[in-house]
């Protein structure tokens, strides 16, 4: 699928822009890159020479957190514009090499890191998890790429499996047949590959008899919930499932943790999909957990910079990373645990903790890991 720059004005409502700068003012990378969303909208609107705009490195700094488009008073589709420009570049083969590799890897191996397709479910080998096709279930735990392959995030997958098993939830995974959801692929500009993934995944889910999907990553949750055109299967992020299990008494948190924790709202869970309360409910129900709210929370959460293909982009930004700012914010309020509910947030914060030298003061945990410790 190609997006023609000539129709950008109409497609992304660039002519609605009143140049108020709300987008730029709230942009999480405004001090980290020369990206100026307001100016980009204006320039794209007026230019005769689109190629000169599309060559700028800062176009890859956008994390697609969507703060700009959610706050835009005029309905300009800023993030879609970024994706449109990236699509233009992808079609011309002019994307940065690391992005190109991620896209190719996804096409070949079904994950952006290029790990072997056949080893996608290795993490679950000894966990006694049902696999669709071998056994039947109606609920799919859609694992996602990072939770399948990344050793740090595999811990989240393990934790979630143990929780669901403890709560006697009947569920299965797709095993080797699972492929990337495509959320980041679309954000890196490969609309055609996204479309193919959406089509193939939808067909696979339906063939496997999936009636309900639980995702680990908010990014997968977003793709299934908002961007798969023909899915028609209810999707929940795991925090929504756990909050329900705790509330209905099916999941008992018996072990006290004696931690002081704060929560970082992932952009694709919070501001984009308005799941704010469930993670907080879960944390509040952990015995011994002293929950402290950071100043920038909920709709005002500061993006960790892990979205929009930033996991595979190199450079393009400078200065202190948001991940580091965030870690310092958490430390400043006295939190010893920074909880989140997104693989990308988890990874960017792990890096930030190392860089900032604060490893002795704070740890980053996924909510699933904390719950698994508490049961």
């Amino acid at each position, binding site marked *: 699928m190609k997006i023609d720059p000539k129709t950008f004005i109409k497609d992304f409502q660039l002519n609605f822009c*009143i*140049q*108020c*700068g*709300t*987008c*730029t*003012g*709230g*942009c999480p990378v*405004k*001090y980290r890159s020369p990206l*100026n969303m*307001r*100016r980009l909208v204006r320039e794209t609107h007026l230019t005769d020479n689109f190629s000169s705009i599309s060559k700028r490195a800062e176009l890859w700094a956008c994390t697609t957190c969507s703060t700009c488009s*959610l*706050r*835009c*008073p*005029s*309905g300009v589709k800023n993030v879609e514009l970024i994706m449109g420009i990236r699509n233009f570049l992808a079609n011309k083969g002019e994307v940065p090499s690391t992005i190109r590799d991620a896209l190719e890897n996804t096409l070949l191996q079904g994950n952006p890191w290029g790990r072997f397709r056949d080893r996608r479910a290795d993490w679950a080998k000894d966990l006694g998890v049902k696999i669709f096709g071998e056994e039947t279930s109606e609920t799919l735990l859609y694992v996602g790429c990072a939770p399948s392959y990344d050793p740090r995030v595999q811990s989240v997958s393990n934790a979630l499996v143990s929780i669901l098993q403890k709560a006697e939830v009947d569920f299965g995974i797709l095993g080797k047949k699972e492929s990337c959801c495509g959320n980041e692929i679309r954000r890196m500009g490969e609309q055609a590959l996204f479309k193919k993934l959406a089509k193939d995944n939808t067909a696979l889910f339906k063939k496997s008899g999936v009636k309900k999907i639980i995702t680990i990553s908010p990014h997968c949750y977003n793709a299934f919930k908002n961007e798969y055109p023909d899915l028609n299967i209810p999707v929940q992020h795991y925090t929504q499932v756990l909050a329900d299990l705790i509330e209905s008494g099916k999941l008992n948190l018996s072990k006290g943790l004696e931690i002081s924790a704060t929560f970082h709202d992932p952009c694709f869970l919070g501001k984009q999909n308005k799941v704010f309360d469930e993670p907080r409910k879960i944390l509040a129900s952990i015995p011994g957990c002293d929950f402290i709210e950071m*100043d*920038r929370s*909920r*709709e*005002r959460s500061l993006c960790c910079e892990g979205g929009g293909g930033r996991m595979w982009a190199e450079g393009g930004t400078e200065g202190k990373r948001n991940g580091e700012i965030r870690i310092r914010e958490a430390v400043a309020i006295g939190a010893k645990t920074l909880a989140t509910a997104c693989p990308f947030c988890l990874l960017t914060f792990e890096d930030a903790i190392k860089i900032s030298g604060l490893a002795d003061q704070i740890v980053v945990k996924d909510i699933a890991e904390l719950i698994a410790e508490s049961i």
Partner: protein
Amino acid sequence: MNKKIGVYICHCGTNIAATVDCEALVRFSSTMPGVKIARDYRYLCSDPGQDLIKKDIREHSLDRVVIAACSPRMHETTFRNLLLAEGINPYLLNIANIREQCSWVHHDREKATEKAQNILRAAVARVLGQEALTTRRFGVQPSAMVVGAGIAGIQAALNIASGGMKVILVDQAPFIGGHMAQLDKTFPTLDCSSCIFTPKTVEVARNKQIELFVSSEVKEVTGFVGNFKVRIQKNPTYVNFARCTGCGDCLEACVLKKGVPSEFEEGMARRRAIYIPFPQAVPLKAIVDKESCLLLSKGKCKKTCVEACKAGAIDFDQKEEVIEKEVGSIIIATGYDPFDPRLLPQYGYGVYDNIITSLQFERLSSPSGPNLGEILLKDGTVPKAIAFLHCIGSRDENTNLHCSRICCMASMKQAHLAKEKTGAEIYEFYIDINAFGKGYQEFYKRVREEGIFFIRGKGSEIFKRDGRLIVAAEDTLLGTPVEIPVDLAVLGTGLTARRDAEKVAQTFGISRSADGFFMEAHPKLRPVATQVDGIFLAGCCQGPKDIPDTVAQASAAAAEVMSLLARGEIEVEPTIASIDPELCAGCKLCIEICPHSAIEFLEMKGISAVNEALCKGCGACTAICPNKAARQNHFTQTQVLAEVEGLVT
């Protein structure tokens, strides 16, 4: 059937004659049954044109007239008056529109002439079946009701009262004055709001022509222009106003020491359960809030207020009262609600101290406010930097698309006051400065001269860093993101329709525009009327307005009311429906469909009947009646079918 019809074809200069062969139309008309005479003329609406018709009526004893000319919207009244003057019933006229519906939309002269013939044939066929109708007349109650006693309602009420007519002024609040009573100084002249307003509120209380109902709401409106019946519900205040002297002893005595947020002070101060809204309130009476009063909400209290009241005015047995009144006309002036900035969580309102709305700033700055006019932070210190954020809840697709019109000026006025009182550094975050009124641009310049920093960019968010509020935005003129630390942030909150606007619209049968405000009959030419005859609008209930525009509209609405009341009686079009009692089967379908509740069911006879006073002649009942019992004057089945037949012959 011996009708004598005169047919007149107008050239309208070349408007019609260039495309339609008017002489051919004359020849064609002469052949139609019933036509006594046919003529064409350059401008029939001109005096010589009209004289020509008059002469024919007299000489040929014409009893019906067809004019082939422009749209009936243009000159139907002209020619109806002509007929009336010549002693012919004006409803025996028919207009064939051969301009808008023919000559203006066609080029081919031959085909246009043929179409004009068809239109004319239909018009003649219809006029043969038309009946003489008599305009109905009704008396007018010489009094008005004004709903809402803010500056709009007060201005309108005073205008009407000074014209010698009775006014009933109703307000939900326990005092009059509305939002204007809360303001400190007013832009651009910096008049003190209460200085210019108090004389008006006091005059309302003093004026014998005005009957004031506070703590009251209009529950039901029936009737029609000139003869509205209204039911006003007076809610209990638990204080006998006739006895209360407004001394305030009861307030001190109230056991609810910690109090609840004061509505008048926009939550910037607290009040007791029994309270006087503010020192200049009219009427200056204490009232009991039943939500916070321990006796009324929990059933248990020492009633120290009753002990303290020397006048014996407190009466916990007070019940709501319903008052019925008849009025000739109504003005709705129910005002606005300020936008609730909690709906835009990025601005941190309700999360942090020292982020306030523009109305809260007014209270802060007002000499009668909680700080006696000193602009102080929550901790009592003087702010060193203040930000004013424009367009919060206005010009925003996520909230309200409309511009609230007053916020630019209000923010700049507040910046001026803040500068004067605190010397703080002041930042105005704006998208565009809408300084549209008289003296407004000059005020904008003055504020710039005073050293206020204007940053052309909408505030994106407010967060906290190192104990200070940080306003993040882009300076779009420099193309640089900015994060400015301030101590106080004032959100220029927009004006929205009242939360209960829909309920009010239904009570009065008026409609609302897409922005939620009440809709005027015509945006340019009838800006104070509604589509309900006799009901008018004033002030912000129709759309955001500053005080000068509100006062102007209120006076305009008052003028409309007075011209209506002064007439003494009103004429109503006779083109209404009737139901034939012989044919009506009592199925009530018409009652269900009638948008004006103008049909009632006569239980004794088991049939429906039209209330002539309420019927607007929309024709819904005639279309739905399965028995053809409902019939509409001037649009009878015979007339309409004759017209259709004429068209397709």
